[in-house]
């Protein structure tokens, strides 16, 4: 299923100079905020949890997921260069699967690693806050990548839709409307993180079994559907 050549092309496209800068900007901001907060308030578990939950998990991870997930395929479809992948005897689901792996890896590196570092800066991983949020970032990276890869496959406005989802649904509705939280990748990943490290600092509105089922279902269905869409992707002519 995994094609190393497709992966190489995707990595190089994703980590091109401009996109790498965008991908690196938010983690850098998180680290700067963490250093500032630690300097101003000292090591405090609740503050660490607030920063990591409010900024890293609610904002940074979904945005990086949008950039990596849609960026893994959207630009190729937009500019038509995907034709060089599609005109090969490659199974379409294999192309999607490979791009998913790349998007997950990129999202994890640019979100989970900075989350851990920020947690260590904020309170030295007191009450395992840093590890818990890193796990949440890792888990949500998978689901976000699958969702946004699908979005990149089906829509030319994937980045806009992705950002609306990430910022409006996850960040805004998720914090205001209780029902929306059940359908939030963020909450699902927090449920997993809570289970792994325990404690009261990292909590979720969703139970672990529900979260696990939804995470797997969303990831698998989005990936399967993206593969199907790519099989019948129509490359519009120039006329």
């Amino acid at each position, binding site marked *: 299923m995994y094609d190393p050549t497709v992966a190489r*092309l995707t990595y190089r496209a994703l980590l091109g100079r401009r996109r790498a800068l965008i991908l690196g900007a938010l983690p850098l901001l998180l680290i700067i905020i963490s250093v500032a907060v630690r300097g101003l308030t000292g090591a405090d578990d609740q503050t660490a949890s607030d920063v990591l939950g409010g900024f890293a998990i609610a904002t940074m991870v979904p945005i990086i997921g949008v950039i990596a997930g849609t960026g893994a395929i959207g630009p190729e479809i937009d500019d038509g260069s995907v034709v060089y992948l599609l005109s090969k005897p490659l*199974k379409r689901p294999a192309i999607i699967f490979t791009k998913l792996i790349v998007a997950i890896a990129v999202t994890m590196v640019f979100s989970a690693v900075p989350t851990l570092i920020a947690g260590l800066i904020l309170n030295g991983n007191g009450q395992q806050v840093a590890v818990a949020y890193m796990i949440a970032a890792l888990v949500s990276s998978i689901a976000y990548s699958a969702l946004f890869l699908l979005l990149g496959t089906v829509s030319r406005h994937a980045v806009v839709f992705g950002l609306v989802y990430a910022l409006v649904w996850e960040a805004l509705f998720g914090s205001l409307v209780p029902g929306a939280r059940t359908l939030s990748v963020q909450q699902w990943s927090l449920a997993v993180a809570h289970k792994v490290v325990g404690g009261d600092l990292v909590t979720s509105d969703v139970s672990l079994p529900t979260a696990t089922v939804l995470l797997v279902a969303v990831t698998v269905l989005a990936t399967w559907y993206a593969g199907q869409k790519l099989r*019948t992707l129509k490359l519009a002519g120039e006329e």
Partner: protein
Amino acid sequence: MTTLSIDHVSRWFGNVVAVNDITMTIGPGVTGLLGPNGAGKSTLINMMGGFLAPSTGTVTLDGQPVWRNEQIYRHIGIVPEREAMYDFLTGREFVVANAELHGLGEKAAQRALATVEMEYAQDRKISTYSKGMRQRVKMASALVHDPSLLLLDEPFNGMDPRQRMQLMDLLRKMGDEGRTVLFSSHILEEVEQLARHIEVVVAGRHAASGDFRKIRRLMTDRPHRYLVRSSDDRTLAAALIADPSTAGIEVDLTEGALRIQAVDFGRFTALLPRVARDHGIRLLTVSPSDESLESVFSYLVAA
């Protein structure tokens, strides 16, 4: 021997019919797909290449469906019209990647780069390439797996005359080797120079098929124009105009020639030498002044 069959294929986008009930068979050798911009050539090529489903009808390659059949790409090489092609790679990296996606390696890529004479610039980034160089690297990427069918969408667009000639030589060679080569163009001279066999598409319809001179002759209800110089233009003109195969004759004094409009091609071509012989007139020049594809084309468009 690879044959691409297009069988009663139509394609519409909403209310717009881009391709209207086209049936054609593309065999070995070079075939030109000719038509003005917006005629449906790209839509047709996209369907031939398996990137667009026909709304009705089928496209098959040696009996195998092209749509939703990835394995067909073992036999097809595609040179798309669009420019985008992983500009961040070097030419060599791009062609190697294309070879790998076919399960081939560096060797196949190098051979393809040599075929298009791009080895000298293979280590430069594609973003620094000229249009002609891009076209050649696209060509190399389409040739890595030695396909029996080559589809090229407007391959000469933006090429300078030298590059154009090189690519034409290459395509001619491919055709001579027995490959099925189909290229689209809206420029008549390109098609005229490269392909004797043409398929003409006008406004989504299949307007004509075959040798372009034969197509021209088949359209006997259309006037044919000739420029004729002889030892006695006026006597010749008088004798020709008496025959119903000739619709009009102009004595062009500046050119020192006759401009003849014939309405019955077959009859006129037999009449002219006979009349000349009967009147003891020597024919110095007989040249069809509208045998170019341009005129064939304008008739087809008007028809």
